[in-house]
């Protein structure tokens, strides 16, 4: 494995950890908040709801693994 690939894998492991779905969910939530903020609808409420769902789903996945 090349040094660059190893470094990228280490960064991925450090930031994303063992749950890439949560990282993807955070990215999608930020994108959806940005899209909603362009409309007349308040956008702040989306983040707490999405975080609650991401946390619950992440815990459920780990509990099922054990």
């Amino acid at each position: 494995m090349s040094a660059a690939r190893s470094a990228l894998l280490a960064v991925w492991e450090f930031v994303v950890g063992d749950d890439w779905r949560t990282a993807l969910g955070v990215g999608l939530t930020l994108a959806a908040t940005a899209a909603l903020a362009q409309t007349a609808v308040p956008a702040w409420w989306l983040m707490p709801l999405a975080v609650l769902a991401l946390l619950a789903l992440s815990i459920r996945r780990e509990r099922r693994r054990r």
Partner: protein
Amino acid sequence: MSAAELGLAGSVFLACAVEAVEALTIVLAVGSTRSWSSAMTGTGGALLVLAALVAGLGPALTQLPIDVLRVAIGGLLLVFGLQWLRKAILRAAGVRALHDEREAYASEQAAARAAGARAASFDGYSFAIAFKGVLLEGLEVAFIVLTFGANQHRIGLAAAAAGAAVLLVAAAGVALRAPLAGVPENTMKFAVGVMLTSFGMFWGAEGAGASWPGADAALLAIVPGVLLVALAIARWLRVSQSATTMREVAPKPAAEREAIGA
């Protein structure tokens, strides 16, 4: 000091203290088993690398436009915070084992003894293990110092909070000459997870263009809200875990015993 600055200093201090406790266990184990001077050299080297990382990246990060900084840092803090919080909730509920410093210390000592004879002057094993242990535990703290500090343009305050935590843990380690097994590590990790998630939500949404009701005062509702939700999930998991255990150990009804031929 404002509420946001207090949150910054408190979160960095707690995160750094808990990682320093884990790093101390490694340094104590190799130092007491093989070579104090080599272990301390490794520790110093890792701390220098971490300080250089913060000093090098900190000023560069603060040059980014505030919305770009907030959305990037908010997203990273959320990804990081949700991982800390998930693990702390699972440990608090008994689904995941608690980190045991005495066990980690014994295991590091056994590995250090098994690593073979050491040279008279410089022990490469002690240096490498202490360097790697402190660097790996410290990287998460450096990340938190950089993200929290850069976003509020208070990297100095964040670094001072981290330095205070390192000094406190090191002083306790020197005084006790033993791993700090009595420190409530999971409670501290729980608190850090709550803070990272709360600030990640706040900054991420702001960076994406949303406006929180009450502006900065919204944090006074977000932090307790995240804490209450996390505690409620941990409690629900604990109750459901005990119910599962009770069902597994309870004697089976006669009809069921007959059905399975017992």
